[in-house]
């Protein structure tokens, strides 16, 4: 299956979903007005991936900003990962936040409490 590689824009993040490596990355800003339009292909990809995933999948979320419209879409992605995890696959979600960015840390913890997949909170030095 093909990987997804999308360059970031001021309103949308860099995306790298690599099937061979089992590596998923979202990096940058996610503040589009219409998040569903941006995230639908990613959710669909993950659905297809989960039919034949790697034994271990690592998801790196390295967002500087995301809007509430994106937050539901992120949850959709995490739910797909939760399903893979229930199916016996190893999934890890690395949630990055910049030093002192308590809001971003808290956002990660919100997801962590909703989604039954191991989250790792990683503080980045500025």
């Amino acid at each position, binding site marked *: 299956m093909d990987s997804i590689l999308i360059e970031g824009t001021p309103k949308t993040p860099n995306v790298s979903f690599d099937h061979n490596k089992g590596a998923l990355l979202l990096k940058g800003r996610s503040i589009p007005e219409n998040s569903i339009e941006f995230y639908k292909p990613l959710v669909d990809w993950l659905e297809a991936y989960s039919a034949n995933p790697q034994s271990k999948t690592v998801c790196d979320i390295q967002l*500087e900003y995301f809007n509430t419209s994106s937050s539901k879409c992120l949850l959709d992605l995490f739910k797909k990962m939760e399903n893979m995890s229930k199916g016996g696959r190893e999934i890890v979600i690395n949630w990055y936040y910049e030093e002192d*960015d308590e*809001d971003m840390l808290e956002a990660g913890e919100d997801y962590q409490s909703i989604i039954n997949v191991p989250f790792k909170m990683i503080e980045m030095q500025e």
Partner: protein
Amino acid sequence: MTNNTATTGRKFEERDSAMNIFDLYHRMESNKVVLSFKGDVTSELMASILNIIEQRMEDLNEAPKLRKKVYNVLVECLQNLYHHIDDLPAEDGKNGRDRSAIFMISLNSNNGYTITTGNYIQTDRKASFEDRLKRINSLDKMELKELYKEVLSADGRSAKGGGGLGMIDIARKTGKKLNYDFATLSDEYSFFSLNINVEENN
């Protein structure tokens, strides 16, 4: 765009309004307005505003924590305007749709920023919207967190994509009650205004 004079519209000024007019006057008078705008909120406009404010905060050497908070809250405020403005009836001399909103961001006396928005909404949407705002304002920090998670994980989302999280998010990020007002203009239309202070130690 940067130095436009914000006007709140004739009808709104006529009423005995609490926060906005004097506050607006005071802030424009004391020259603390960073940017104000009245007009149609488009995707391109939002991008420009975010750019300008981000640059300005960098020029002012604001702490990263404050910058992020302001940016986040600003995104939600602008996208609320973008998604939820109701079409205004054509007024004298105008025809067709007018989706005008006002927006202003200024420095406040607590070393933070004040964001003010105003937009028309249909009066029949007012009651349910106001109920949501009242509920948000009745909750403490932990209860807001729970409400956010509840709305986040609820199935379905509004046709406009936001899912009703924007106001909860603003209340959480600012750590303050939402300061809002509705002015009833007619049976059909009301004017909604929101005044938000974003400070570092929220």
